[in-house]
């Protein structure tokens, strides 16, 4: 495993909820990332973010790591959940809320 995959591994396994995104939670740099942050904010869940625009290595490697070509990407307890479209669909169906409950991720 290369260094960057090791770094991603640490991030994904070391945080209950982590969003790989463009920009920060406060200043998202892309509409899809912005929507992902809004959903998590709305759920009141504590989450970490990784700004891929600040880390070219992760930006490239996360695509293969997740087998997913786009950003944002959400991980919950080490498990890949999806991008912003999937987050929105799951949120609307109550599945995202259920997932967070099942994984025992605390809401703020």
């Amino acid at each position, binding site marked *: 495993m290369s260094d960057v995959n090791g770094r991603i591994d640490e991030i994904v396994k070391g945080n209950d909820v982590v969003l790989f995104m463009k920009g920060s939670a406060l200043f998202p740099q892309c*509409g*899809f990332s912005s929507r992902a942050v809004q959903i998590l904010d709305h759920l009141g869940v504590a989450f970490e973010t990784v700004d891929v625009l600040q880390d070219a290595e992760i930006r490239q490697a996360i*695509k293969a790591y997740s*087998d*997913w*070509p*786009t*950003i944002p990407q959400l991980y919950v307890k080490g498990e*890949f*959940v*999806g*991008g912003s*479209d*999937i987050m929105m*669909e*799951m949120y609307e169906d109550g599945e995202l809320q259920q997932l967070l409950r099942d994984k025992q991720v605390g809401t703020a």
Partner: protein
Amino acid sequence: MPMAAEEIETLIRQAIPDALVEITDLAGDGDHYAARVVAESFRGVSRVMRTRRVYDALGGRMGGELHALQLTTAVPD
């Protein structure tokens, strides 16, 4: 180079023959699309796997040539 809506639809249909594909050009600029893909073959398939199938159909264009594709998947009612 932006992609034409018809090209996106054709690629998805080729890979997922039972798919009904609805494309909306969100900004009218040929670069920001929404696609809704409905296919019986999606039944029992997770959202992540459905999306991967569509992305695979687009042959590596996602995240590159095709930046902004809002994608929803569903099974027929």
